[in-house]
């Protein structure tokens, strides 16, 4: 996972990096083991934080549009990853935010379709802009 490989960059930039998924702690633990990642993973089975972060619930074209399919295939090849069984609501999209200690959200990128994800480099750049 790209974010796992970039975790030291977040540390060096002085930021905490946390992943949140829409299932149980057991699923989160399985995800960490399967992906071989050491990042903390929080479990939000009720998707309360997704709603509070303004995450989008996808429509059909957001999941299966030609661009989305192509981008997903490209990511799978690049990451040498195979999509396994989906846990949670398949229409729930994710995203990323950077929060300052005073609670201000200095940067955000919430997904507009299933292929629309911020890269680790974009997120780190947002952190570095904040601490510069």
């Amino acid at each position, binding site marked *: 996972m790209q974010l796992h490989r970039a975790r030291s960059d977040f540390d060096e930039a002085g930021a905490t*990096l946390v992943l949140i998924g829409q299932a149980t702690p057991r699923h989160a633990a399985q995800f960490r083991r399967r992906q071989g990642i050491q990042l903390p993973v929080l479990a939000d089975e009720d998707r309360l934080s997704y709603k509070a972060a303004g995450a989008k619930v996808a429509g059909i074209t957001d999941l299966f549009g030609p661009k989305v399919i192509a981008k997903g295939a490209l990511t799978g090849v690049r990451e040498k990853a195979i999509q396994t069984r989906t846990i949670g609501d398949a229409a729930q999209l994710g995203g990323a935010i950077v*929060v300052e200690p005073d609670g201000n959200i200095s940067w955000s990128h919430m997904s507009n379709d299933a292929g629309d994800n911020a890269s680790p480099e974009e997120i780190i750049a947002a952190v570095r802009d904040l601490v510069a």
Partner: protein
Amino acid sequence: MPAGRKPRPPRRADGLAEIVLPDHECHDVRLGDLWSERPAALVWLRHYG
């Protein structure tokens, strides 16, 4: 949020701060504690699959 509506991230994390979620070891984590001392990047996964 109804399906298909554009994402609407808030400008402040006040609505997130009091949410408490278990981590992969079943320890409760209050989200606001993640950024209380230094910036935090929160990444919501689409799914664990």
